[in-house]
């Protein structure tokens, strides 16, 4: 695979080690809150961000967010260490480390943020950073296309989410998630259904529920550590996190139960079959991730203790074994050069450690006792039995778990102990930085299962309490819960799973045939994008003719309409023309300006036009002088001087205004010009008819000396009251200057001149 690097390249570098160390430190930081949060007291940090819009940068650490934070930082640190070795010597490794670290921080922000708007911002940040990560092999068009697909789909969902959040904020009066959850269910609110649909759209696209699932397997174009991190433990769980986070506010209604159960169950079962159908092991894992996401969504449909416990336990189990298995596949790929399920086999001898940890993770995935996976499955069946739509949930779970058993065998057993095919490379054991992460995760899956009480007390129960917004009774996680219905279901799962594994190659062929007949959403997506582009092109052709005259004519026409239409619809008061008391001087100034304007309009000579412009400028300056604006008048005169100098320098190097000394008359343009000019004058006349609001002026006149110690009020406004404004304006001056400078001294000159010469030679 092209994404790999030179095995002998040095892999310890600053970017890699710094990100690993920082992430590990964050993990340690969150670890210290375990006892506090387990004891039932959430931690809160808050800063005002945009107080006027009630948007705060507030963070809320309860059982749910702590569990996620630990998974994100813990798995993150291992993945980063793994990636340092996996991509050793890759020329863009530093960039990769930066992307991965930014993603980790965004994800962390998402699960910790309490303010809905902050949640949205972090949500979109994870989308953007994952886009960069999925498209990391950017020279590959397929990789770029898949990254874009993930970006568009999840960002579109994000926009729906934003709409939902704003609706919540407007109807509930707060954006703080903790306050919303404390206020209880929103089911009785008038906009509940709208809010629910919008939020679900966001969550389902992010967590790749059918029919938005197709981006996730495509996202496997990313380097394996990214898939292990984003598509097992973190990003795709963002949607699940959101559903869990908003569970107290949104759950409990029929719509919630039905929609989540059906979408989740369909996703889970569909994805398990698809997983069985894949030959590329990475694709297999991608589909099992979909299956896990579907299962989680399905259990979040419920509101019973068992259902939520099932979701939270399964979430932990899945994160651990899935990250481990993804990383293991990476090791295998790294060592053998292939991920083909039919070829890989008998690797246990060459790669004993990899085989060991894959087996551990596989057993957890298959749900064999005493792994946490077994407990999760037991609780899941108990949860299913406690939920609405009981039979449906239980049967779908049974199907999904049995298929998972078979897939676990394909992924974790067969490559190591099955028959070996023709491998591209001679297999060898992976290097330690690529083993330590998956090994730890695999062992954790076992330990957590051996000590269900500890797992429950520190991780699962606080999370369940957070989701249910009530203290959790606990005591549901047991290795041996007695001989009950869930145990029977478990045994049935094993039996069914074994049969499925036995026939999996035949099943795969059958599934491939079915898949070929079904609708292809992925291709449909491409077609949709094409239609979209066609529409954009059509629109561009119609609107952007490339003729400046048409653009400006349209602009001024719209301007005229924008003034006329409201005037007609809402008749305005009359306007009075008062010329009384105007002195000779004022009439003179008016005449001067009009004369200058006419001069510019009529002449074909550049010098005459320049003179006309100068006359207008001086006339305007005279108005400023007469009407008490000395500062403005001085500025106007100085700038007028500069304009004339600049134009004189530049214009004379340019051609004549009218090559044949005859100006073309344009009656249509003249009519539009007269209309726009007349309307502008009319609007101003109407404005001066309205009573003048002196509040601001009075404030500035009163405060200029008393508070700002300046006697020139204009200057005080500029440099004291409205400093930020002035700062922006001088920045604009610099930008304009640099722009003009760059154009005149430009570096693009050569290429463009070549183009111009081509034009000339035509």
């Amino acid at each position, binding site marked *: 695979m092209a994404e790999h690097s030179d095995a002998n390249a040095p892999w310890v570098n600053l970017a890699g080690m710094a990100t690993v160390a920082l992430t590990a430190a964050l993990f340690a930081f969150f670890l210290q809150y375990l006892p506090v949060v387990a004891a039932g007291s959430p931690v809160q940090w808050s800063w005002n961000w945009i107080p006027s819009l009630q948007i705060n940068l507030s963070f809320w650490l309860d059982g749910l967010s702590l569990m996620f934070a630990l998974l994100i930082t813990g798995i993150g640190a291992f993945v980063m260490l793994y990636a340092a070795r996996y991509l050793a010597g890759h020329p863009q490794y530093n960039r990769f480390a930066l992307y991965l670290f930014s993603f980790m921080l965004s994800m962390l922000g998402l699960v910790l943020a309490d303010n809905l708007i902050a949640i949205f911002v972090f949500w979109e940040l994870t989308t953007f950073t994952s886009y960069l990560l999925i498209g990391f092999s950017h020279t590959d068009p397929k990789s770029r296309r898949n990254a874009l697909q993930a970006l568009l789909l999840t960002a579109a969902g994000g926009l729906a989410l934003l709409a939902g959040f704003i609706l919540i904020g407007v109807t509930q009066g707060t954006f703080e998630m903790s306050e919303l959850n404390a206020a209880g269910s929103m089911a009785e609110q008038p906009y509940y259904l709208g809010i629910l649909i919008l939020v679900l759209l966001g969550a389902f696209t992010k967590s790749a529920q059918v029919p938005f699932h197709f981006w996730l397997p495509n996202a496997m174009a990313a380097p394996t550590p990214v898939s292990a991190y984003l598509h097992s433990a973190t990003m795709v769980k963002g949607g699940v996190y959101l559903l869990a986070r908003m569970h107290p506010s949104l759950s409990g209604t029929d719509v919630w139960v039905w929609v989540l159960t059906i979408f989740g169950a369909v996703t889970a079962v569909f994805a398990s079959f698809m997983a069985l159908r894949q030959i590329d092991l990475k694709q297999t894992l991608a589909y099992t991730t979909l299956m896990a996401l579907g299962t989680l969504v399905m259990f979040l449909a419920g509101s019973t203790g068992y259902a939520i416990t099932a979701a939270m336990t399964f979430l932990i189990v899945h994160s651990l074994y899935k990250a481990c298995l993804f990383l293991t596949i990476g090791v295998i790929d790294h060592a053998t050069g292939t991920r083909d399920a039919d070829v890989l086999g008998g690797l246990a001898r060459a790669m004993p450690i990899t085989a060991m940890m894959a087996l551990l993770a596989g057993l957890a995935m298959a749900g064999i006792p005493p792994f946490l996976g077994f407990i999760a499955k037991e609780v899941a069946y108990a949860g299913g039995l406690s939920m609405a739509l009981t039979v449906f949930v239980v049967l779908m779970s049974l199907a999904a778990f049995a298929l998972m058993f078979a897939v676990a065998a394909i992924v974790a057993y067969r490559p190591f102990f099955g028959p070996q095919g023709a491998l591209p490379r001679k297999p060898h054991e992976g290097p330690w930085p690529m083993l330590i992460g998956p090994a730890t995760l695999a062992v954790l899956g076992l330990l957590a299962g051996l000590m269900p009480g500890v797992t429950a007390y520190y991780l699962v129960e606080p999370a369940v309490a957070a989701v249910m917004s009530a203290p959790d009774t606990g005591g549901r996680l047991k290795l041996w819960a007695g001989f009950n219905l869930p145990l029977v279901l478990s045994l049935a799962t094993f039996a069914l799973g074994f049969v499925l594994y036995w026939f999996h190659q035949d099943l795969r062929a059958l599934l491939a045939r079915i898949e070929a007949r079904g609708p292809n959403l992925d291709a449909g997506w491409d077609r949709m994008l094409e239609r979209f582009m066609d529409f954009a092109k059509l629109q561009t052709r119609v609107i952007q003719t490339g003729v400046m005259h048409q653009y400006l004519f349209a602009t001024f026409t719209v301007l005229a309409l924008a003034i006329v239409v409201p005037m007609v619809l809402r008749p305005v008061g009359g306007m009075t023309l008062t010329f009384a008391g105007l002195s000779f001087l004022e009439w003179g100034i008016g005449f001067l300006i009009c004369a200058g304007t006419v001069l510019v309009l009529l002449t074909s000579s550049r010098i005459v036009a320049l003179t006309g*412009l100068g006359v207008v400028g001086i006339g305007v300056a005279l108005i400023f002088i007469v009407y008490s604006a000395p500062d403005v008048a001085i500025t106007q005169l100085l700038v007028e001087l500069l304009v004339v100098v600049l134009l004189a320098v530049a214009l004379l190097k340019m051609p004549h205004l009218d090559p044949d000394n005859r100006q073309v008359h344009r009656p249509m343009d003249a009519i539009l010009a*007269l209309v*726009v000019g007349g309307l502008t004058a009319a609007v101003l006349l109407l404005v001066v008819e309205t009573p003048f609001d002196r509040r601001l002026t009075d404030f500035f006149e009163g405060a200029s*000396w008393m508070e700002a110690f300046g006697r020139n009020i204009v200057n005080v406004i500029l440099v004291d009251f409205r400093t930020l404004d002035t700062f922006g304006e001088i920045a604009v001056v610099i930008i304009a200057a640099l722009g003009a400078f760059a*154009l005149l001294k430009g570096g693009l000159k050569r290429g463009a001149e070549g183009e111009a010469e081509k034009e000339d030679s035509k």
Partner: protein
Amino acid sequence: METLTALIIGVLVAASVYLMLARNFMRFLFGLILLSNAANLTIFASGRMTPGAPALVPYGEDTPLGVVGNALPQALVLTAIVIGFGLLAFTLALAFEAYRRLRTMDSDKMRYAEPKEERE
């Protein structure tokens, strides 16, 4: 004076629209200059016009004596004039470079960014 100024602005705007609709890019520039003058006058006149009383606090006083010119639009116009100059300089540089490269001032013939062929 507001009435007369409004009429002056009307004349300026009409002239600038007519100039900006011209094919010759230099006329567009002239229109831009007139338009920025018109805009400045509009802001100024909207704040009402007071003759012969600059917005200054005399020495020994805490506030201005009597009715003085409205300082806020003056401050806005002052920066607008300087920025208008920056805009003009940039546009002029653009025009100059365009002429140097394309050898025309006719905006209809400036098809470097949006060539005619691609529209077919």
